[in-house]
């Protein structure tokens, strides 16, 4: 009969502890276990539990150990490699305690939205649809190209994005877009069609109407607001909201 444990020694202890953290997170570990694991990379094979406990005895607490100087740690028998990792932690704690706020583009106003489009879509392929995801303060979270969707895609889509897979039907395409919105934790979105040559803004708006209407129906169900759909052609633009093409 095969044995349950290949060895009754401490083999695989480090792997087990890593699996534990990978599965359940680090919150359940005792302070000395956190320290024990932080000592693994700098101590190739030995059991680091005794050292971890001795360090906490010497410095009073996990916090005390992490706040100790490199010299103090070395004097207690900690390897240079381990000292390297331990002494980084107070600096990281400091960064976590005072994060920098990233500047996000504010496109809450029409003029700013247009400026953003002019600045960023000049070299984007014509025919493409972009989606701008906004947070609760109308700041830009993400700007993505929307994959071309379903039946009725016109022959002149050579400027549009190419997919290896066949394009999604309308419903699933809207679903995929809203899925991205949720992933970005967006509050609202604006879609922008970069109108291709040979097509007018009005024509593009007409073609896009079924998509936008589907989007308008689905988005509120997920607490997402669709601010507008804009067809952009050079310096010309046409807004779905202002055109009376659908219910707003």
């Amino acid at each position, binding site marked *: 009969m095969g044995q349950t444990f290949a060895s009754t020694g401490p083999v695989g202890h480090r792997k087990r502890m890593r699996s534990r953290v990978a599965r359940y997170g680090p919150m359940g570990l005792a302070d000395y276990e956190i320290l024990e694991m932080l000592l693994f990379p700098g101590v190739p094979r030995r059991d680091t539990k005794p050292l971890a406990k001795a360090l906490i005895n010497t410095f009073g607490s*996990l916090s005390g150990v992490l706040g100790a100087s490199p010299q103090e740690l070395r004097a207690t028998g900690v390897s240079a490699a381990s000292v390297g990792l331990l002494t980084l932690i107070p600096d990281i704690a400091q960064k976590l305690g005072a994060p920098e706020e990233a500047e996000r583009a504010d496109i809450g106003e029409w003029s700013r939205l247009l400026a953003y489009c002019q600045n960023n879509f000049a070299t984007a392929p014509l025919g493409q649809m972009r989606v701008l995801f906004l*947070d609760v303060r109308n700041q830009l979270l993400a700007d993505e190209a929307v994959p071309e969707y379903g039946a009725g895609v016109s022959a002149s889509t050579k400027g549009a994005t190419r*997919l290896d897979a066949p394009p999604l039907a309308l419903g699933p395409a809207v679903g995929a877009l809203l899925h991205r919105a949720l992933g970005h*934790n967006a509050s609202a979105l604006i879609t922008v069609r970069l109108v291709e040559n040979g097509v007018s803004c009005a024509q593009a708006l007409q073609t896009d109407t079924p998509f936008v209407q589907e989007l308008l129906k689905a988005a509120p169900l997920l607490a997402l607001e669709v601010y507008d759909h804009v067809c952009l052609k050079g310096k010309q633009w046409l807004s779905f909201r202002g055109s009376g093409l659908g219910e707003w």
Partner: protein
Amino acid sequence: MADASGYKLEPDSTVLPMPAWQKTAAFSSLSVERSLLATVPERVLLARLLLAIAPKEKAIDALVESLLAQFGSLAGVVSAPKHALEAILGEGAVLSVYLQLVNDAARRMHLARLQVGSTLADRAQLMAYLHTVMGQEAIEQVRVLFLDKKHHLLADEVTGRGTIDHAPVYPREVVRRALVLHAHYLVLVHNHPSGDPSPSAADIDMTHRIAQAAKVMGLCVWDHIIIGGGRMVSLREEGFL
């Protein structure tokens, strides 16, 4: 005194796996701009950290760039939830496990400083702790700091997680928990992922409801703190309590 530890109501699910729009050209890839925001010292610190964890790792610089591109800053990388880290580093990857360990070690450092004497005495330290635990959250989270009569921290618990602009909290459950912990003072805390920590009317209303419920039991809601955009607003200081 036992360790005051926060617990999460549910497994970390703030990062949603998304359909991969990989085939489309990302023209104004915000990820590039985000990684540019990280300062040189942050890059160096992150590189040193990764190297200290995995000295044999060869592609450190590339890893630093992809982590910063995804999470925006060193704080973002270290606070990233498991699923997000594993998406870049691989499932169960040693680096992912250790970033979580380092995050928790940093949290414990800040927590230990809060537990020296009165939790409310050092505003800066309280802010540092709250930023460490909530600063990178994309959704609203409500926590309660349960304090004893001498303002010593008994526990810090997440009572509710919500959505981008709202989180549920039940006055009854907060008070019930306070009774179990023998707390006397409560400090409510929540974050505004929008970056604006100003209290909404709903925030103020909820504060009063919990304060009234607590008062029935002779307990006191000492403050309600809102963090957002690197700032902290105290409803007590603003005169709402």
